[in-house]
């Protein structure tokens, strides 16, 4: 089942990952440019299933934590990525066999690809979300008790900031007040450091093979590629790119219309808001409303809730198949609302506490696509 990612696949991969970003996950354009600069035409990064990792080995996930807008002035930092990798690798004494993305949605899938290409190691076909989420405790690793990686490192534009080597049986790691999701304390601390360090830092973490076999959302790299390629070939053949996405991702088309209104407010460091869409053509007369907090979270038709997080609600520019992120929403955009099913790992009772509607402040039950 393994395959390779080449330089020519970067556009399709990031297009697909932006669809899975559900309106968030960060703009991947600068990441794509960096990846195309660093990958040579003949480099090929093998993509493997987590089962194919060497027993006893670790996989490393480099990620950026911070404000997507800051990324537009501070493109991906290779100094930070290399410093984080060096620190974590040293702590593992060489037992590194792969890289992977903590978050498939948006920008984050680029960093493990870069480091895997440089190291000549494979990329795991999977991630910790199957989409994009705004906070660190919203990964399947945090939800199912593997915390934020052992060991991990924080780094910035000038190199290493701090390194952590906790043991997974350390009681301090498990301590939390009972009604809080696991991992939320680490999220709060990292967010503080991030704000103090220019709004953008890099978190590099290592996870052992057995934890990943238990918690990884599998197949997300190949899904992103499949979606991206489907859009590209639909564009070439002048076919409907939205239909191509729906087919590639086994999703559902909800409504095609135009954005008529965007309301936003900024609270507690997040971009909250509502976008209203009026149906056009065959959907004339239907009106949808989507609530977002960085990502699209709840889709309503009138009083009827049609779909909620953790299922994926994504907006696609109808004509081009380009995913529409929450930060570029504006009246007049012609979009189609598409729903995609969340990974089963996100739909358990335990997961819904961390990533269900209530985790985002909505007093709503989870309405799923299936």
């Amino acid at each position, binding site marked *: 089942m393994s395959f390779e990612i080449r330089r020519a696949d970067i556009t399709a991969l990031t297009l697909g990952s932006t669809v899975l970003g559900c309106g968030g996950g960060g703009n991947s354009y600068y990441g794509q440019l960096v990846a195309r*600069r660093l990958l040579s035409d003949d480099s090929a990064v093998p993509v493997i299933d987590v089962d194919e990792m060497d027993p006893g080995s670790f996989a490393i996930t480099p990620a950026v934590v911070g404000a997507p807008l800051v990324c*537009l002035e501070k493109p991906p930092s290779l100094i930070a990525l290399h410093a984080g990798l060096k620190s974590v690798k040293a702590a593992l004494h060489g037992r590194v066999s792969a890289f992977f993305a903590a978050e498939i949605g948006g920008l984050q899938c680029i960093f493990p690809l870069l480091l895997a290409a440089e190291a000549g190691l494979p990329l795991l076909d999977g991630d910790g979300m199957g989409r994009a989420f705004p906070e660190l405790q919203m990964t399947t690793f945090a939800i199912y008790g593997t915390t934020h990686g052992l060991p991990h490192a924080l780094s910035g534009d000038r190199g290493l900031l701090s390194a952590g080597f906790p043991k997974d049986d350390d009681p301090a790691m498990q301590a939390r007040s009972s009604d809080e999701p696991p991992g939320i304390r680490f999220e709060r601390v990292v*967010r503080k450091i991030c704000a103090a360090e220019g*709004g953008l830092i890099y978190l590099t973490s290592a996870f052992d093979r057995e934890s990943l076999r238990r918690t990884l959302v599998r197949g997300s790299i190949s899904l992103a590629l499949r979606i991206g390629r489907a859009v590209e070939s639909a564009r070439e053949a002048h076919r409907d790119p939205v239909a191509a996405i729906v087919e590639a991702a086994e999703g559902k088309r909800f409504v095609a219309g135009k954005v008529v209104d965007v309301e936003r407010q*900024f609270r507690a460091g997040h971009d909250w808001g509502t976008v209203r869409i009026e149906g056009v053509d065959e959907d004339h007369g239907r009106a949808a409303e989507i609530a977002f907090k960085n990502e699209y979270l709840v889709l309503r038709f009138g009083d009827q809730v049609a779909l909620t997080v953790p299922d994926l609600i994504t907006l696609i520019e109808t004509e081009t198949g380009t995913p529409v992120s929450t930060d570029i929403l504006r009246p*007049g955009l012609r979009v189609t609302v598409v729903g995609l099913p969340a990974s089963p790992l996100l739909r358990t009772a335990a997961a819904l506490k961390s990533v269900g509607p209530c985790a985002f402040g909505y007093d709503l039950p989870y309405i799923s696509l299936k």
Partner: protein
Amino acid sequence: MKIVAGIDVGGTNTDAVLVRDGQIVAWSKIPTTPDVQSGIVAALAGLPDAALSRRVHIGTTAFTNALIERRDLASAAAIRLGKPVSESLPPMTEWPPDLQSAVRNQSHFVSGGREYDGRPIGELNRDEIRRVARQLAASNVTQVAVTAVFGTSYPDDETRAAEWLVEDNPNLQVSLSHRIGRFGILERENATLLNAMLRPLAARTLAAYQAAVPANLFISQNDGTVAHGPRASEAPIFTIASGPTNSLRGAATLASSREAIVLDVGGTTTDAGVLHLGYPRPAGLDLAVAGVRTNFRMPDLCSIGIGGGSLIDAATGAVGPRSVGFRLTDEAMVFGGSTLTLTDVAVAAGRIDLGERSRVRLVDAGIVARVDSYLRARLARLLENYERLGQHFPIILVGGGAPLIEELLRGLGREVVRPAHADVANAYGAAMAQVGGEADLTFSSAAISREEALARAEREAHRRALAAGASPASITIVELEDAALSYLAGDALRVRARAVGDIEDPAS
């Protein structure tokens, strides 16, 4: 009394209008000349009393064409302030190879730049800048683009670097990113570099224009405002998308409308755009200029394949998208041809009088009805792109094909305005343009409220409109928006404001 001449230098024609207190009092249209200037002189000569105008506003594609054709471009140096931030994306990343090879651009990374909250990434270093200035002198480069990380919010480093560069090498001309582009370092730097590459051409061209016109010269810009000649020669990149903007604004102003949809019906397509507060609504996507990504905005235009030369399927009533185009007068049936076009159907239906009506007597009422029902559906869908349910903007109809659909639109219950002089709308749009200023700022808002941040952006935009020559009393804010730098505690804010105002003519 204000008298202004507006000129649109198009690929085919050079149009001129003389506007007195907002009204067109004379107009002329002559073929564009290869040297442009003599066409401008001739077009102005066609206007009686042109000598009375205090100002001449010119819309030109000279700089767009230079970039597209890769000619008359100067070599430039990109200086990025913010080392080591952003080193992963050097200047000119993914520029088209032929544009890169048309010039000998060079890049320098030096200390400077700020974080989002204003803290320095590194201090600007006098010696480092001096070394760069020496290298530029050695390589005979005179055009420089300076871009600092977070330069739109904290422009001081760019300004000081420019002062030092010119101090070290008085031959240098420096384009500053915070005066050219918006948030987004690479797109802003791209625009600034393109600007630097155009400046020598702009200086020559605008000097020639100024020599050709007897009044104060202003140049049309992307955002629908004009810039005074000397300012425009410092920022020629701002002219790059001024054509469609002038056309929309000209049409709307002719129709005395500030909220309207403009439909321009040509031979092959009908192009639509919408105006809000008198300015075109911008498209969401970034504008690629000559294959280089910038973060300028184009008007949000929609085009459908319906025009005077569109081919008709008599059986279904389908119109276009294929068209006989400029061969209309040879191929349309009313002109003795054998192709059934939308023009023929309009003649048969008695909507226009063109060619010989007897040649289309076989176009019966059934065909007209089928074509009409097709057009109604397509036009309704086109308009739907710009309107909310139940909302109707007036429609301003311009272009040679306007009579073809006017009656249909009225039949849809729409208010239709067909302004006089619509065929010189671009030149009129240029003549009626105001001056403006824009501010794009970020605030670490622990200490400052959203209202105060917006107020500061408004004040800055106001100040820049004033500097561009606006009369203080006439300045209004036409755009104001904010966005949070989400994920940061303390709600760091990005705010953007744009102000416009009437040009204050010097007392005569």
